[in-house]
């Protein structure tokens, strides 16, 4: 089973667990399995259409899945998946 590392802001939705073992053949399936175990994560990770939110970065090691095969990126039993929240902001409201 692969391991998903939960970022600090989302640990309140996983009973403070940092690392969760999940099944699944690709990233989307692994994330779906994570959400089935911890449903409160859903609004933070998925769009209404079930796709991974744009504001959420998913990494395998130091590689962004956008540089691999996105949510179709294959997952092995020893894959370590990191959920990385987008951190941004700024003083002005002007886009």
């Amino acid at each position, binding site marked *: 089973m692969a391991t998903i*590392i939960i*970022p*600090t*802001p*989302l*640990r*309140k939705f996983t009973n403070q667990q*940092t690392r969760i073992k999940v099944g699944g053949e690709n990233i989307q399936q692994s994330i779906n399995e994570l959400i089935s175990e911890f449903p409160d994560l859903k609004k*933070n990770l998925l769009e209404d259409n079930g796709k991974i939110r744009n*504001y959420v*970065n998913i*990494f395998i090691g*130091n590689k*962004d899945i956008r540089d691999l095969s996105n949510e179709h990126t294959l997952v092995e039993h020893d894959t370590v998946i*990191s959920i*990385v*929240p*987008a*951190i*941004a*902001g*700024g*003083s*002005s*409201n*002007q*886009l």
Partner: protein
Amino acid sequence: MIYLSQKIKIELINEVLVGYPYEVCGFLLGYEKREVRIIDEILVVKNANIGDQRRRFEISPLDYLHSEAEAERKGLQLLGIYHSHPDHPSIPSEIDRLAAQPYFSYVIISTKSDVFNTIQSWRMNENAQFEEEKIITIHNKLNNLKQHGNYHHSDTFAQVY
């Protein structure tokens, strides 16, 4: 409630003034217990925004991953983010709110020109709105905690200090 030592506060202000007129950013590491946070260390990271860094900041995913790992290695918690608002008040903008994460403290340091103005901390509530979080500046951490009445010598949280 968030405790900042005088040393950490000065480090933050120095970072902000050195970085002026651009926004600077980084992470706040420390301990939390009973809704009280004590910041023990800051991690300065590069503002990775590719637009106007005088009005925007962004932290790269790799810097985020590194900071989580660093906090874990040191036995600390990643408790929040700091960033500066050059020539703007230390109040979150709508852009700050839209991009904010739950749980994190958002410490904002304001300058007027290249002079320190104000510092405030904010946290998102359940309705995705920021609420101010009181900052307490401490000179002697343990004495201050004892004065606050929530801790005593047998409390492991206080013993850290």
